[in-house]
């Protein structure tokens, strides 16, 4: 049996005296669509940052496809693409180069990378903006560029932090369709979102974090049962 896409065991993250993540453990199966939910400040982004290497780990361990993110960090990072909530593009590069340089940081270059960058620009309807700097893009275009950049090195695991925050309904539905297509093609996806209908619509399994602890981990269908996800969420996270 292949290693899970993510295996988190006893993850603890403290900032001084504050415990942001308090001993959570869970697996995300290879090929699944996993939703990590929780109120603001619950520890979702800290957990994601620990997975991708933006945050150090106080205790516990994380492995991506069997590669420990600390001991075997280089192999682990190659497997994952992050689409952060904030737009953090390089302002000195044009849109096409943002993709090509990101591939370069992952050790990839040449005609295959340029071809993939052009395909992603085409897929996300950004070809006409290829030579512009990102500051000139609309919010929806920036959101699409975030996804394109996360996918340039063809990661096996895609992590999306609020991927549809601030986008209109049409683009949201478009992104949902794209993510379903990507997942069906074998990419494992981890999603954090405040739009509960988005998690319900897309994810086959959900984890809910509250005050740094995992308070639910179940398949979406079983977790919700005959209620709404909002009711379940509020019941589990009411402070």
């Amino acid at each position, binding site marked *: 049996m292949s290693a899970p896409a993510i295996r988190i065991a006893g993850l603890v993250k403290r*900032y001084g005296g504050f415990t942001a993540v308090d001993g959570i453990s869970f697996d995300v199966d290879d090929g699944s669509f996993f939703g990590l939910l929780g109120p603001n400040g619950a520890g979702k982004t*800290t957990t994601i*940052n620990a997975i*991708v*290497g*933006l*945050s*150090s780990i106080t205790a516990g361990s994380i492995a991506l496809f069997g590669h420990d993110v600390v001991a075997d*960090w*280089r*192999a682990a*990072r*190659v497997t*994952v693409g*992050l689409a*952060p909530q*904030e737009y*953090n*593009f*390089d*302002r*000195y*590069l044009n849109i096409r*180069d943002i993709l090509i*340089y*990101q591939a*370069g*940081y*992952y*050790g*990839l*270059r040449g005609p295959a990378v340029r071809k993939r960058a052009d395909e992603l620009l085409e897929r996300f309807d950004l070809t006409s903006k290829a030579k512009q700097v990102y500051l000139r893009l609309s919010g929806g275009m920036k959101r699409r560029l975030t996804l394109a*950049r996360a996918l340039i090195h063809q990661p096996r695991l895609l992590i999306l932090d609020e991927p549809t925050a601030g986008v209109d309904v049409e683009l949201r539905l478009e992104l949902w369709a794209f993510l379903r297509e990507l997942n069906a093609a074998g990419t494992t996806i981890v999603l954090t979102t405040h739009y509960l209908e988005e998690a319900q619509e897309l994810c086959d399994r959900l984890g809910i974090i509250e005050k740094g602890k995992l308070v639910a981990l179940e398949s979406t269908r079983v977790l919700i049962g005959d209620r709404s996800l909002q009711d379940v969420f509020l019941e589990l996270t009411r402070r």
Partner: protein
Amino acid sequence: MNAIGLQTLIKREMVRTFSIINQVIWPPVITTVLYVFVFGLALGSRIKQIGGVPYATFLIPGLIMLQVIDGTYGESSSSVFQGRFMQSIQELLVAPLSALEIVTGYVVAGVLRALFIAALITVLGIVLVHTAPIDWGLYLLVIVLVAVLFSALGIIFGLMAEKFDHIAMLTTFAITPLVFVGGVFTSIAFLPPFFQRVSLFNPMFHMIDAFRFSYTGHGDVPLPLSLGVVAALAAGSLGGALAMTARGYNLRT
């Protein structure tokens, strides 16, 4: 070793440099032309020689060091700080790039930038005052050591700064004063004995003195001493930048 990642970072830094060429490349060149006209040709015509060489020949290496130090620190520190401020540095942090590769990328880019600025000013020296290095090996060695030192120092301050003002503090209160009293315009031999001894503790003096050796063939202190000071400072600064980046200081939470 992620060689392609490292090369990509160096290339990215050079793209940044040439996209803000009016801030990074032309100011040191224009400032140097002005210094040469005012100090070298106007005032310098009243000073016949310093240490056996024409004043203009004495002045040019000091001006090159002045611009290399200022430009290298300024670019490296602002690039790192801006990356943190805009969070674009996360593109590097999530990629399979080690701290050594990240620091090497910034430092190599800093060295290339320094060599480019130095080359332009060297050409100005040849054209305007007909002076050129007599020891090109030493010329390159000192530029590389000084650029490594100030690129690494730029990384350190780029990591520590909470606002651009913090980066400017080192330039305003340390680099500029120490460079100006470090022998750019005059030899420390002109100073009273007490200040000559004090100058020996000024690191900028050793950088300028070692570099001037490549133009004049002699310095105020023995070359091994000045080169040793510069090399030790470069090693210390590089070690500090590497340790902070490896720790994720102000980079990873």
